[in-house]
């Protein structure tokens, strides 16, 4: 018996054969924030053959409350999350091939990574990237596991191409104003419970126990002691552009992506979201004020102070981030607030 994984091999759902399979698989984790760092740690400890993790962000003090791979030292060194994650994951398990990328998970980048991936774990904080993952999953026939949380509320759903509905079937359009951890807060037990569901599903997929894979959509609220599990068969949409017969994978098209442009001669980035549509500036202002942000505005725009940057948001979702020329940083700030 391989001593290191002995307790996992003892579990009847895995066994020696399952452990052998886990050892030969490749997991792609998109995001190295709260969900990403937790998923990566569990799968690294489980002895997955190869793990790729991609993230565009840096470790900040406010991450430490819930992002389990990082320490105060990583904050003071301002390490990219992917780099800090890699360092810790290697110390945890030198058997696992860890590949960490400091990059934005664009369609191009993900299409280049996908070839030998067995399952993708969603650890992003916005629906736009999730829709890209969803299209990649359908196009290359790779399962992915949706996970998300805000406050004490979390959810997970395993998306198996050809078997379950996909995220585009469920949402039809991208919610422009999803709740995020930067607007609704988050406690770490919620994160861990989403991770539990995601990693259990990942292990089932890695050992190819397709019977065991959950087909229901789980959501829960740990503070209000709720847990529901929804049957999803009826959610499958024949005309879905991501998984239907006449599919076009719309989210792999550059036209449908959030565009960020550095405005010439100004220390400002413009963000133009993919699905233009009116947002309620009034509601957003009330929400941001209650969170303690400094907000000014008129019926046409809102101006929000965020540390050294200032974001101006228009009714159609377009925004200007003043105080930076860094496209990726600007997009991060934008999606923190607008989801």
């Amino acid at each position, binding site marked *: 018996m391989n001593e290191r994984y002995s307790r996992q091999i003892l579990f009847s759902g895995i066994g020696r054969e399952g452990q052998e399979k886990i050892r030969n698989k490749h997991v792609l984790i998109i995001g190295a*924030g709260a969900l990403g760092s937790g998923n990566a740690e569990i799968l690294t400890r489980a002895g997955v053959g190869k793990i790729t993790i991609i993230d565009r962000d840096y470790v900040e003090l406010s991450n430490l409350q819930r992002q389990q791979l990082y320490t105060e030292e990583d904050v003071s060194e301002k390490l990219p999350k992917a780099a800090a994650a890699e360092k810790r994951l290697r110390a945890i398990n030198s058997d696992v091939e860890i590949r960490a990328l400091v990059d934005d998970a664009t369609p191009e980048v993900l299409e280049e990574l996908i070839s030998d991936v067995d399952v993708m774990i969603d650890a992003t904080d916005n629906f736009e990237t999730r829709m890209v993952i969803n299209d990649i999953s359908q196009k290359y026939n790779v399962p992915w596991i949706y996970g998300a949380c*805000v406050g004490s*509320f979390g959810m997970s759903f395993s998306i198996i191409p050809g078997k379950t509905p996909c995220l585009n079937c469920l949402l039809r359009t991208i919610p422009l*104003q999803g*709740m995020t951890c930067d607007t609704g807060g988050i406690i770490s037990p919620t994160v861990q419970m989403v991770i539990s569901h995601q990693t259990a599903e990942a292990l089932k997929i890695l050992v190819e126990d397709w019977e065991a894979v959950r087909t229901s959509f789980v959501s829960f609220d740990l503070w209000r002691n709720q847990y529901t599990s*929804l049957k999803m068969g009826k959610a499958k949409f024949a005309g879905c552009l991501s998984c239907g017969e006449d599919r076009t994978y719309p989210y792999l098209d550059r036209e449908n992506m959030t565009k960020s442009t550095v405005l010439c001669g100004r220390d400002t980035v413009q963000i133009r979201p993919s699905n233009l549509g009116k947002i309620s500036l009034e509601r957003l202002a009330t929400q941001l004020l209650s969170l303690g942000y400094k907000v000014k505005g008129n019926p046409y725009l809102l101006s929000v102070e965020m540390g050294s940057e200032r974001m101006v948001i228009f009714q159609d979702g377009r925004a200007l981030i003043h105080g930076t020329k860094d496209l990726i940083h600007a997009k991060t700030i934008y999606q923190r607030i607008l989801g």
Partner: protein
Amino acid sequence: MNKVLFFAHLRDAVGKELIEINASGKTVGELKEELTEKYHLPRMETVMTAINEEFASNDEVIQDGDEIAFIPPVSGG
């Protein structure tokens, strides 16, 4: 009569987890509109609906006794 359950920030908007109303004969879409107006619920067009723990589309018709749940997909992570 029908039980209607609200999750996450919808619950905060409504002020309670559960209400009882008569929604039988209405479509999910009609119920969403009605509740949006009554409770000022945000962005109901992107909220997932379940009838008796099973996903339901906007044009599904609610029967007497059905339990409805509204679950907003969230984007945090």
